[in-house]
């Protein structure tokens, strides 16, 4: 035990810099950990555990029980080949000052070679550390970084100090950060900005505590907990609650070293502004949280997190200052709001003519006209009036040139909805405009209303088709126009509303609007959407293989989306049914026979009745024909998918009998081909329903 204590110790590394942007901190913590662990492992220096910290200025890691000495390193040198000439072998021995009995012969994948292995004593960890730190500093990657003064090194913000302690002693050394510019390793860091004292760290185990005493909470989770606990105790007294805003909370954690929760008041005159305006003005510019009562009504209060120690006088001043700022912000917002409500949608739409949607895709005004045309076509499918669909589309983008949205782009749609309401537009229209940017991601809520869903979908189809038509489709990780998210949203709406439209039908009007007749563009869009359909459907607890089997049919472009869903449901339901399993086995058997044959690229293959010499052949012939008719008749009916599967199951017996009593590989080639074609036609008609080959056993 004693030995272990001597051979191991703790390590502290801290990068102290000017305020690092909140959004980068958590990642930097992870990166620091990865880089250091990698460097230590590469050098065979073992350790027990680590803990990382990050905040505005302190980024640090403590490694527990790290070995104070590197493990001895075995270095192996390869000499000449075993069968090399004497001269080469002597040369190797001489240059390494070896005798022949100090070498060994080893087999490698390139043949037998002479080897010499040598143990090199492990270095002391403190001797290696400066190299490691320099390696970390130089390989650190920030999303955005800068130089400062005469440095060449780039860091998110100027790096001012590096603490490096091993076993509580400062490690001697430095890191070069520019030509003849160095940072020496130190044993001190700095306290909260408020006092900015130099803090000497004598013991690593006291590091966290010592800084907390100096009002820097290093652990971001502790800062988060403090914010949450202090908030709830402050609000409970007033029976209020905080509007949940996780991402704001995480940002605020990165803006403070010592959180101090304060609450300010909003002047009553502003409470008439739409709720979203209030919360956006508070959130975006000021990073304030909104507060509501238990019934979710917005309170005329706001909560914010100051970076300070509680002190009555100061807190009072800070609150007063923040209230003044908010008042100025909200009077700006009121000014925009008042101006906007005296403006008209016609006026805004006129302005949209001057705003380009995208180069060669026309103006935003062109976009709403296209959207209106498409909306009318699909109105019925969404169960809404076509006049309202058209009106919603026409008004949908006006708010983009309103003063409020120019100031707060995140209020797009929301302001349009409010303004349409004020202008006494139809309620369905106002709600549709309000929510037509939803869903904003795979996990966002869908629009609640039918008209909103239609408008959202049409907007997104127009964007998708537009960008594909000018060859701006996403490539690799690049998707600058968010087309992936866009088509996810389209697919989610289609599935959720059980829309009775096929991909072909969906894209046709939009392709027409863009005068795009290219088959390959259409093919690309359809493939793109099928890919998203696959993702969304398999995320709905469907088996991937079942989803694939239905989407991998040749005619999938013509199958309405709601049929695709219900077909997947039906197949999933039958998956455990024994008869269905027999059917699958039969289908795969047919598939295997056909696989080894070559067929011309046709949909229908000639079958001559005169070559039949068994009843089984006739039965299969009938089955194949009647299923072909059946799938045309019932394939597009949502409720008939089960019936069709039952139909398939009923084929089990005739197919089994066929295999029992009919030899496909007949000596007479005419008969052989006739039988193969018979099976091929059956296979083709079944495959219009689903490509069962893809279903796993």
């Amino acid at each position, binding site marked *: 035990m004693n030995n272990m204590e001597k051979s191991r110790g703790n390590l502290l590394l801290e990068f102290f810099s000017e305020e690092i942007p909140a959004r980068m901190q958590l990642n930097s913590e992870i990166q620091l950990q990865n880089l250091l662990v990698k460097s230590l492992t590469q050098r065979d220096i073992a350790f027990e555990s680590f803990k990382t910290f990050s905040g505005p200025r302190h980024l640090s890691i403590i490694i527990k029980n790290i070995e104070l000495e590197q493990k001895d390193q075995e270095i192996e040198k390869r000499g000449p080949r075993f069968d090399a000439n004497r001269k080469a072998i002597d040369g190797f021995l001489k240059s390494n000052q070896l005798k022949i009995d100090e070498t060994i012969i080893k087999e490698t994948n390139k043949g037998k070679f002479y080897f010499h292995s040598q143990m090199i004593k492990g270095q002391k960890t403190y001797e290696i550390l400066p190299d490691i730190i320099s390696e970390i500093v130089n390989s650190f990657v920030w999303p955005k970084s800068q*130089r400062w003064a005469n440095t060449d090194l780039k860091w998110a913000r100027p790096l001012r100090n590096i603490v490096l302690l091993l076993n509580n002693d400062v490690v001697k050394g430095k890191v070069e950060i520019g030509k003849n510019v160095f940072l020496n390793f130190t044993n001190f860091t700095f306290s909260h900005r408020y006092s900015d004292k130099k803090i000497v760290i004598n013991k690593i185990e006291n590091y966290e505590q010592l800084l907390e005493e100096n009002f820097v909470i290093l652990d971001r989770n502790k800062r988060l907990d403090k914010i949450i606990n202090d908030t709830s105790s402050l609000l409970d007294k007033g029976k209020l609650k905080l509007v949940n805003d996780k991402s704001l909370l995480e940002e605020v954690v990165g803006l403070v070293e010592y959180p101090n929760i304060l609450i300010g008041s909003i002047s009553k005159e502003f409470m008439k502004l739409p709720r979203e305006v209030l919360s956006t003005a508070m959130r975006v510019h000021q990073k304030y949280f909104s507060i509501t009562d238990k019934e979710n009504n917005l309170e005329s209060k706001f909560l914010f997190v100051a970076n300070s120690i509680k002190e009555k006088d100061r807190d009072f001043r800070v609150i007063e200052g923040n209230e003044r700022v908010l008042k100025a912000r909200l009077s700006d917002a009121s000014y925009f709001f008042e101006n906007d409500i005296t403006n008209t949608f016609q006026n805004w739409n006129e302005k949209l003519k001057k705003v380009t949607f995208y180069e060669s895709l026309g103006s935003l005004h062109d976009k709403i006209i296209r959207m209106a045309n498409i909306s009318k076509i699909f109105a019925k499918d969404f169960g809404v009036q076509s006049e309202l669909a058209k009106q919603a589309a026409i008004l949908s983008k006006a708010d983009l040139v309103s003063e409020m949205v120019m100031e707060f782009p995140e209020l797009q749609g929301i302001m349009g909805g409010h303004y349409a309401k004020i202008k006494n537009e139809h309620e369905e229209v106002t709600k549709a405009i309000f929510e037509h940017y939803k869903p904003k991601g795979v996990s966002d809520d869908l629009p609640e209303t039918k008209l909103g869903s239609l408008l959202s979908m049409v907007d997104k189809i127009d964007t998708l088709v537009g960008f594909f038509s000018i060859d701006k489709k996403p490539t690799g990780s690049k998707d600058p126009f968010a087309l992936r998210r866009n088509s996810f949203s389209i697919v989610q709406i289609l599935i959720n509303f059980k829309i009775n439209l096929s991909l072909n039908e969906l894209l046709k009007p939009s392709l027409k609007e863009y005068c795009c007749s290219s088959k390959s563009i259409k093919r690309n869009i359809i493939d793109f959407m099928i890919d998203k359909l696959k993702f969304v459907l398999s995320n709905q607890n469907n088996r991937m293989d079942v989803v694939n089997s239905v989407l991998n049919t040749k005619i999938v472009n013509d199958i309405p989306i709601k049929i695709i869903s219900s077909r997947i449901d039906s197949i999933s339901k039958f998956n455990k049914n024994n008869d269905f399993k027999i059917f699958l086995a039969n289908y795969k058997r047919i598939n295997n026979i056909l696989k080894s044959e070559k067929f011309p690229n046709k949909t229908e293959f000639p079958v001559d009745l005169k070559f039949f010499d068994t009843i089984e052949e006739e039965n299969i012939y009938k089955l194949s024909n009647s299923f072909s008719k059946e799938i045309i008749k019932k394939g597009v009916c949502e409720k008939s998918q089960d019936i069709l599967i039952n139909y398939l199951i009923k084929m089990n017996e005739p197919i089994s009998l066929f295999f029992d009593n009919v030899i496909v590989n007949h000596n007479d080639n005419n008969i052989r081909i006739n039988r193969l074609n018979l099976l091929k036609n059956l296979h083709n008609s079944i495959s219009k329903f689903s490509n069962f080959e893809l279903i796993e056993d």
Partner: protein
Amino acid sequence: MSVNNSFQKIITSLQSFWIDQGCVLLQPYDLEVGAGTFHPATVLRVLGPDPIWKAAYVQPCRRPTDGRYGENPNRLQHYYQFQVIMQPSPEDIQNLYLESLYFIGLNPKDHDIRFVEDDWESPTLGASGLGWEIWCDGMEISQFTYFQQVGGIEVKPVASEITYGLERLAMFIQKIENVYDLDWDGIEKNKGGKTYGDIFLQQEKEFSKYNFEKSDTSFLFKQFNDAETECKNLLDDKKNPIALPAYHQCIKASHIFNLLDARGVISVSERQSYILRVRNMARSSCLAWMGKLNE
């Protein structure tokens, strides 16, 4: 007794503070600019020739689209910045800044001071840097930038720029909610004291009208083209270009562009090309200043 925090006192305090830090105290550049950065003392000087350059100055700034006819308590189309440029960026520059606040009567320890990420980019100057906006009790009172590039050229050594929004700062210190109520001179009203409104309200009204309604756009378009041509001519002789007058024309063009923008006569698609034209002027002037125009 409010002499100590009058608008003009804040200016003179900042001046004497930064003089003590070794800055040369300059006067505003005598052209309309959108920000203190445009002053040649910043744009050109950070590119050399001396690697040490420290300057401080007040710069009146014009942002024509921010005009509100004197009706908005916080927005002006003409306002003042106090600009400090230090090259190379000093190690204790953040502390120097905080001390300067203390010096003008704003003790950082009595407030909640925050450095919030705000990267700066000027498309027309081809300039960019990383830094923060500085919040005092939630109010943005300054901008802080480590210059990385100007005119598309790497700034070496890196300079730090501090820009105080003087009206904002004074409103904060005087606890005033309407910019026009700012105490300018610390003299009582009945003794002839002046407020910000006494001095600038009429100007805001008239210039808002000019910016949004009255400016002659065909005249402005012509002026823009003329400035561009002049700039090119001045740099024509690649061996002996005259960089400062060329850059002077670039500043002119930039302001004319802002005026045209306020009239809404530059379409979205044209906008980019105008910005690019100003940037080209800025870049060539910077290269000329460095004697690298023909490289």
